[in-house]
Structures are given as structure tokens and as C-alpha cells.
């Protein structure tokens, strides 16, 4: 006859109840989800901060460029640039202007008929960058 198996021999002194284990597993699951979400939000936060910094940097850069552009296209800068390139800019003479009327016809301006050429030459050259 076989000896009777001692059931108590394999049992733990502090058996863990299954519901408790399940509860712990759920808690651990929640904790992991929480940690993941927290980590994700932190990452997003860092990204937002970085993007905000980049936006501010770009905004500053845009303003600086606008400022430079405004300086470059000011009449005095244009005049200096023309001078630097040896260009002389003049207003067109009145006899060089042709206006197109609304009806499509062309019209030269009045008052040029009998001016001597020397006078035309003098009056037409209003040097802008002298």
C-alpha cells in the first residue's frame, strides 16, 4: 500500500488569494498605462516647448528680415544702390509717356508740341540720385 500523499507538504505557508493577484495585476496594468501616458504627455510637452521656442525664433527672424527689407527698399537705400552701380535714374519725359484711355485709345500728353529739343533734354532729365 502506497503511503498517503501529504497534501500539506506542497502548500505555501502564506497562500496568495487569486482575487488579490487579479487585483494586483489590474493595478499593475493601470500603473503601466499611467506611466506610458505620462511619458507620452511629457514627450508631447517637450515637443510643444521646442515648437514654441522654434516659433519664437522664426518670428524673431521674420521681424529681423522685415526690418532689413524695409531698410533695403527705402528710397535712400535704393538711391545709394543705384549710385553704387553707376546707374542714373530719371523720370520719363512727358513726351515719352503714353496713356491708355479706358476706351483703349492711345493718347500722348498735352503741351509738348513746340518745345525746342534742348529744353526737352534739360527738363526731361531730373536726376534722382545726384
Amino acid at each position, binding site marked *: 500500500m502506497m503511503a498517503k500523499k501529504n497534501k500539506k507538504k506542497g502548500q505555501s505557508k502564506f497562500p496568495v488569494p487569486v482575487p488579490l493577484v487579479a487585483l494586483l495585476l489590474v493595478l499593475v496594468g493601470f500603473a503601466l498605462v499611467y506611466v506610458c501616458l505620462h511619458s507620452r504627455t511629457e514627450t508631447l510637452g517637450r515637443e510643444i516647448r521646442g515648437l514654441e521656442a522654434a516659433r519664437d525664433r522664426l518670428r524673431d527672424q521674420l521681424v529681423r528680415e522685415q526690418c532689413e527689407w524695409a531698410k533695403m527698399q527705402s528710397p535712400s537705400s535704393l538711391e545709394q544702390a543705384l549710385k553704387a552701380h553707376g546707374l542714373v535714374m530719371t523720370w520719363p519725359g512727358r513726351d515719352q509717356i503714353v496713356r491708355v484711355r479706358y476706351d483703349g485709345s492711345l493718347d500722348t500728353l*498735352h503741351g509738348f508740341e513746340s518745345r525746342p529739343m534742348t529744353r526737352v533734354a534739360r527738363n526731361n532729365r531730373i536726376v534722382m540720385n545726384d
Partner: protein
Amino acid sequence: MTDPRGSTRFVFIVALLGLAMAVLVGRLAYLHLGGGNHSQATVAKQRTFKQTLTVPRGRILDGSPAASILALNVGVKDIWVDPSLLNTSNCIGSTLTRLAPLIPIDLAEVLLHINKTNSQFAVISRYISAEKADAVANLKLPGVHMSDSSIRSYPQNIMLCHVLGFANNEGVGSSGIELAMEKLLKGSPGLIESRLDGHRREMVERRTQEIPAKNGADVVLTIDQNLQYMLEKSIDAAMERNRSKAAFAVMERVRTGEILAMVSRPGFDPNKFRDAKDLQKLNRAIGYVYEPGSTFKVSVIAAALNEGIVTPDLMFNTENGRWLYQGKVLRDYHAYAKLNVADILKKSSNIGAAKIAIMLGDARMDRYLRSFGLGSKLGLDLPGEEGGILSPVQKWSPISSSRIAIGQGVAVTGLQMLGVLCAIANDGMLMKPYVVKEVIADDGTVLLRRQPQILSHPIRPETAALMRRLLARVCEEGGTGIKARVDGFSVGGKTGTAQKPISGHYSETDYMASFVGFLPADKPEIGMIVVFDEPQPLHTGGAVSAPVFGEVAEQAVRYLGIIPTENVAPLSNTVQADGPGETF
């Protein structure tokens, strides 16, 4: 676990750990459930982060189609050091030596601040550009830090300085448009309320409040920078040529009252407003009153014509240039025996104008002058406008009207004098002048859009048309304003050469030379006044100011695309100097 002692020990340790856990859990619960309010408040305070989001002021743009930027805020850096760190590491000298070539440093002042060893913050240089700040950052000097700041920048430097004004270092508008439009330009700051982590960095995910900043609105002016440049360039050249003490000029669109250009000299660079003297900051075009001299005759003659008291061909005895009235002598610059009203204006006869004023009468003359906007502010949307001086009619002496008619005993601003001519050019309607065309919010919403506004209607359209023809004669052969002529255009205007009142007497050497006019005379588009203060050696309005008017007007009409029409209707053939007719 057969050893009972081992089993007991195990139970004891587990119980101890359990107890410890229970205490920790209890403490945690206590703190979380509000038991440690004081501690919570302290921690929360330390970790709460509040940041006010400063906003740049709005931009100021010109009225040209390109809408060029005239003023804007630019980001800069302030460089500061930690004196305690520099002192303990004994590297003040080496740090400053490496920084000095890159940024402006006032060594004496900086050393004074740095020697305060208990301080952890000392600014060594302000308003450093991004490029220079990058160069400083690349040095990676210990104890050297940077913080963001911004300054108001005026890319055109001196151009339009009096109209733009300036904003001080605190970003508050202090003069010009910057002051007038302060509320709209400054915007409203935002707020971020958040939490800090252990490294005192913001935890963006814990932001509790975020109120976005509202940028300042953009102000668009009526002034065109190209016209402004033409006017400034001509004024500067003429000032140098005529060795003038000061000068001012204004260009206005006669139909609307829009100011197209406004110059005052001496000027200043708004980027360096601290270096400017008060006299440089004065906008003479609106804030300086002067006796206008002969240009004032226009208002009196227009009034007399409007009342029907005189006609252009009515003859006056101009007394061969010397007239004794009420015991006081009045002289003409050029002596004439007789002149009609048209020629009184063309030749600028003082005696003729005085006689017309006497015929008009004090009360009527006063009413007309005030209707022309004289003696009170026109309401320009710029700070610092003066209203001029026109005494109440009750205080006029028996000779007042004869002197006021020739621009003495009365003081006006350049803008007021231009207003008179523009009213004549605009069929007798005096328009309210303005420099702000519109204000546009950051999101594109139009917050303000100015519309032309009629201030008064001093003379009838027919009188205005007649006056335009009379004023056109001033710029024809034999007139005082011939140098204001523009090829292909008829110009209407009036010269003025006023002796300056100094210590109760009129100076024999110091003059205000002016020319005020409009063109084309038959269908006016633009009006302009040009005034020089104490020009030498030439001192007459016809010789000093009229050429500047002509020079600028010639470019302006082309720039604005105004079509030449040299066809002003001639005056009646009966209008001839020294012609027949009744004589006064």
C-alpha cells in the same frame, strides 16, 4: 521553515515592512486628502510658474501700395552675468576681455556692479542684436547669461521722424503716431500658468491656464514714403543752399485732407531719441506758429470776393508804395500807383490787401478767418498741434484788420495756412487733415478706417474757382511765384516773406520765407506749403520756397500719375493792371 525561530523572524520582518508601508500609505493619504495644507501650499507655490507673455507693438506702415514698414519691434538680448560666480572663480578680467570686442561694455559701471559679490545678477550690456548675441553664446563663458528683450526700430532712420515720434525703452509711445495710437499699437499681454519640474523647467502638460497674447495693431499712414523722401531731400538741399535755421513743409491731398508728406527740420533719428534735443523733436509743421506774411492775403481777398465787396478788376490806389493809415505807415515791397484786386494778389501788394480788409470790416473778416480754420486747431490726429493766434475781434485795434490782412499780428501753423489754400482748391470746403489711414488688427480686422471729413465751408464754389484763377496768375510771368511753376501744369499759389517779430519789433534781417500752393490749378489734386526760417542771403518766399515747391511738385505729379492740363480759364480781359475803372 522548520525552524520556529526562522519563521518568527520572517513574520517579524514582514510585519515591520507592512507597518512601514502602512505608515507611508497613511502619510500619503494624509497629504493627498488635504491633511498637509501648509506643506501643499508651500510646494505648490514653489512649483507654480506664471509667465506674462509680452507682445510686440504693432507696426507703422506707410500709405504707398508697397506698405513699407516705418516702425516695428525687433527682438534683442540683454547680456548679464552672475557676479558671485565670477568673483569666486576669479575670472572677471578674462570674461570681460573676451566680451569687450563683441558687445559695447561700459567697463567702469560694469565693474561697480560686478564687485557686489552677494549679487547674482548684473546687466553688462543691453539691446544686443541676435548676431552679436550668438557670438557671445558661442564663447560659452561661465556665469554669462542672456535674456530676451525687444526694442522699437525705425528702419528709415531720420525720415518721417516727427510724424512717427518714438517709443521709449519701456515700449511706451512718447511722441508722434507712437503716442497718438498708443492704445492700439501696444496690444494686450498674454499669460501662462503652469508647473515646474525638479529642474525648474516648465511642464507643458501641466499648464493650467494659457491666455494668448494679442499683438498690437498695425497703423497705416496716409503718408507715402516716396513723396516724403522727395520732400525731405529737397528741403535738406534748400536748407543747406539758403543757410536756413529751420524749415517745414506739408503736402496734402486737397479733396480728402490726407497728409501725403510732412517734413520738419532740424530732425532727429528716432532710433537714438535720447540724443535728440527738444528743438529737434518739435514738429514745426504743426507745433510752431509764425506770422504768415503775404500768404495770408489769400484768405482776406477770398472773403471779400465771396461777400461781393470786390471783383477781380476793381482798381485800388496803392499809393505808390507808401500809405499812411491811422497814423501808421504801411509800405509795399514794390511800389505801384494803382492795382486791381487780381494784381494785388499777383504782385502781393500790402496796401491793396489792407484796403480790401478795411472794406470787408472787422467782424466779417474775423468770421471768415475762423471759418478757414484759423485761430483754432484743425484736429490733426497727431499730438502737439497748435491752434495759432487770432485775437478775438473785440480786441482788435483800428489798424488790426489792415495788418492782419498782410499776415502781421496773427500767427498760424504751416498746416493751417495750407488748409486755407486747400479749401480754395477744394471748391471752398475745408477738410480735416489726417495722417492715419487705417488701423488693422493682427487677425486682419480693420479697427479704424478714416473717412474724409468736412470741417467748414468758408466760401462758395464759384468764389473758390475764381480764387484758383487769381492764384494761378501768381505763378505766371510777372507774378511773385513764378519759380513754383511746373512744366505742363498750371500752379496756383502765393508767396510770403514775413519779417520775424523779435523783442516787440519786426526784424530787418530775419524772415520767414514761404510758398503755399496747389496743382493743377484748374482741377487741384495736391496742395503743399514750404516754409524756411531765416534763409540767407536770399530771403523771399518767391526765391527760396517757390523753387522747392516746383521741384517737389514736378516729381510728385509724375509719381501720383496726375495728368498735365495747362488750361486754366483766363480771367476776364478787363482785368489789367493800371487799367480803367473806379479806384479805392
